């Protein structure tokens, strides 16, 4: 899985490409751990082909840590494949989900 990073306003925007599963989830966690705790982030899921429970678990873990440090974590651009997983696990209630990266990186 590929993680490309850019900064918009006060947010670090991480665009993921590929599969977010048991083998690639640690890479995402390490990447986020590389920023200070109070750094707000947006994770762009548009090019995620596949998401399983460990990928979802990684996202939930990041969300929890950010909330504890009073930082903001948002998700942007859910595609159909990712949506299915969120629907079954009812995880959409845990995140703020935007359909546009610049909107997410705005407030």
């Amino acid at each position, binding site marked *: 899985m590929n993680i490309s990073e850019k900064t918009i306003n006060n947010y670090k925007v991480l665009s993921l490409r590929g599969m977010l599963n048991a083998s690639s989830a640690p890479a995402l966690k390490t990447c986020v751990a590389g920023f200070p705790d109070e750094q707000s982030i947006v994770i762009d899921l548009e090019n995620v082909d596949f998401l399983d*429970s460990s990928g979802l678990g990684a996202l939930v873990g990041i969300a929890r840590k950010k909330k504890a440090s009073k930082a903001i974590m948002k998700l942007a651009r859910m595609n159909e494949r990712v949506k299915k997983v969120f629907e079954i696990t009812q995880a959409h209630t845990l995140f703020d989900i935007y359909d546009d990266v610049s909107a997410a990186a705005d407030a």
Partner: protein
Amino acid sequence: MKTLIVIREQEYAWLRDMLPGVHPLLVPVCNKPFIEFFIDFSIFTGSKAIRIISDGLLGEVERYCENGSRWGVEISYGSMQPADELPTVIDKNRRFCLEERVLIIKGFLFIHYDKKRDYTTLFASLPSGELLSCCHGSITLTGTVKPESSSADIPFSLTALDTVGKYYSLCMEILRSELTNYVIPGYSSEADCYIGRNVVIPKSAEIKKPVIIGNNVQLLANTVIDTNSVIGNNVIVDRESIISGSIVMDNTYIGEHLEVKNKIAAGNLLIDPESGTSIVMEDPHLLTGMTQSRAAGTLLRRMVHALAATFMILVLLWPYLLLRPVLGLQGKWKRVRETYYNDLPGKTVTLTKTTIDSDEPLGQLAKTLSLDRFTLLFRVLSGKLALIGYHPVPINPALRIIPNNTTGYTPAVFSYAEAEDWPEIGIDTEIVEHYYAVHGNPLKDIAMTQKALFNRNH
């Protein structure tokens, strides 16, 4: 022009309690699912795309409306947090709202409109801002303000839906005076009488207008459908019974010699809209729900599964007949009977789960040939199980969401999780099984069964 529909779960939670089994947004108003009124209205205002946003589950709504091609609009779905206010929701859907004008319908309310009016031109000229509001919601228009804007009169109104009494009076109001304003399902040769397909009405039955009757309805001898009644789909009204000023929801059986007056009958629930009292009827000959049969589309699938199962039975018959007695005598063949959820809502199936000790060559051979599933193959022929699908879920009273065919659950001999070599319990299993239930087809199922047979031995 686009439409954004924003409804919070707490706004329709009361309807979920009153009428369980149907998603509140799909509850029929005069036999037309609630959400369809919104879709119709959006189309009349000239919208090309609609997005439905809620903090609750929209799966059932999504399965019903799909991508909107049925109405010629693009329908998409989004989520929100319960605490989100309208500006936040608009932000979260900025890409969608990047159009010139967006009509935002917020709240669980009913919009009274008239299909005969030209809303497209009207909406093109209305000023931006909140057009109408009531305590439970509002209709807003966003986008650039047209220069020739003036506060035009608003030819539509709102009714908040927050109690079953309001729902009932809304249905009655539409029945009495607004039927021609909406696209109501059914055939109608007169203004206030709509009847669906496959409706059986004997000579002795009496029907008084205004009335709406759905599809597959059977009225038996001497029944009376008095004024202001709505009968849903798949309803049977038994002899001598009288339905007056009442709403009979889908899949309901009404017994003989009964009088349903100013009530809502939904399956085995009888509801008095005025007081909000609802009783669960325990007598099946008074009032009961009708079990839905499996959809026709799955018939092909079941035939293919049955054929494949027959093939497997024939191939494995000799090994089974030879190995089963031997292993049974050796005590290596263990059987447990357990009850599992079936795919039809409310039904269960009792299966014998077999485990084979495979420490010795004979046991290993039996396991390689999947002989422990042999007896279950016969259940595929009788239609109780699928060949490949979900692993059967044992009855568990603590389960929050009971699996049934509305979520795609089909208990089977082999599971997709086995085929894909995934762990057999837990969330990953659900994800795989759900994916293939949605994206599968009968031929793919055969391939997956072969994979399952292969994978079980590695």
